[in-house]
């Protein structure tokens, strides 16, 4: 845990497919189901639209977790989008593991438009798991490491140090 984050709350970005999981999240809303407020939902037309670059970008920008929601296998409106996502997800997970990002920080779920209850349970469960892991805080980690090169910058090039700081 980063000691400076006393009142830290997990921040999770969710990519939800328009046709199923997003609709399910809507349903959860109108049914007044309560779930943790830590998730920011981004609507995509299909889980197959989620480029692995989005996921890395979200982590690199400071998110603690990424959740992807798509239609159940066989139900994708573009027929194969969710299979593409599944395969990308499986390889990405192997890669994230090698890069030191814990498994529970990245999750793929099939949630149909009728499964408002599942949106709730998945989000609550994920928030709890990420909370246990603590902040990922990549921007903070990187800026901390990058301090090491500011020293020479100041010694040699006081003017430039300001420019690049």
């Amino acid at each position, binding site marked *: *845990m980063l000691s400076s984050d006393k009142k830290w709350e997990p921040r999770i970005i969710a990519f939800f497919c328009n046709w199923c999981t997003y609709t399910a999240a809507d349903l959860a809303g109108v049914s007044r189901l309560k779930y943790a407020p830590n998730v920011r939902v981004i609507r995509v037309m299909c889980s197959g639209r989620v*480029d*692995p*670059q989005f*996921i*890395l*970008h979200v*982590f*690199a920008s400071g998110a603690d977790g990424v959740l992807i929601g798509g239609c159940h*296998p066989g139900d994708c409106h573009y027929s194969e989008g969710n*299979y*593409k996502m*599944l*395969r*990308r997800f*499986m*390889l*990405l997970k*192997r*890669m994230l593991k*090698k*890069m*030191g*990002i814990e498994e529970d920080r990245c999750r793929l779920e099939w949630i149909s438009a009728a499964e408002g209850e599942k949106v709730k349970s998945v989000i609550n469960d994920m928030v709890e798991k990420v909370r246990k892991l603590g902040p*990922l805080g*990549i921007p903070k*980690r*990187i800026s*901390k*490491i*990058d301090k*090491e*090169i500011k020293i*020479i*910058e100041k010694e*040699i*090039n006081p003017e*430039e140090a300001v*420019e*690049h700081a």
Partner: protein
Amino acid sequence: MPDKPKIGFYWCASCGGCEESVVDLAEDILMVTGAVDIVFWPVAMDFKKSDVEKMDDGSILATMVNGAIRTSEQEEMARLIRRKSKIVIAYGSCAHLGGIPSLANEFEKAEILKYIYSDAPSVINKEETYPLTEFKHNGRYVTLPVFRNIVRTLDQVIDVDYYLPGCPPTPKLLKQAVLTLLSGELPPKGAVLAPDYALCEECPRKKTKPDNVSFTQFVKPHMMLIDKEKCLLAQGVICMGPATRAGCEALCINGNMPCSGCFGPTSRVKDQGAKILSSICSNIEAKSEDEIDTLLNGIPDPVGTFYRYGLAASLLRKKIQEGK
């Protein structure tokens, strides 16, 4: 006669191949030395840091710096060169994207030092002697540069004007770059001096690349006899061509080896590794988790395969260390 424009070459964390590629200009090197004065090139000519320090700021037209940045000394030299040069060019994959040295970002500094100075099978170091940055011997101080926590690209340390990609850049690209510099018609700042489309576009095997590759297995080049005409991806060999910038004229493919990605991504791609991962996975035939899992075992080292030349420039930059 007015002075010829001044050019410099310098190296940081690199293997020496980039320097070699300058020599590979062959006769054209005479064209270059006829048109410019080389004022700094430690690998080939006797220049010292103090010679550079004496030059006026901005007096060198362009310096090509190869190699990634790992030590304080490299940082210091990069900054000195930045001040003395109007144009700084990141030369080769390591300066451009971190290169092979930046695969070290998969490990922590302490892990690396421990392996190199204690654990490597060829090392005997019972006294646990580790390098120090300062050491006093017979009343004199001996110093070593600081080994930083992470490998950086050149532009993560200083402002960079242009990039010449490749491991190493081809003599043709270098020659073009020098001619561009001399012409005075400079491309926009930050340009990568190579075409901005994927390698597949200039690959002689493009005709045989199927629209839907449909992988049923992944094989490494040494595991099979590779058909010399057919697209490598169509043969199940991981080829980085679709996610890599063109400009090498498919050198590796012509040697019947897959592209390993040294030119980095095109300008529309942020993260080369994620991009090739996306493209490859879309084309896997399997649909069940078990089948996909088995198939993926054919790519045992995804980080080393997809970010071979660019971990430092990738979105994650380094392995996350627990608790820090």
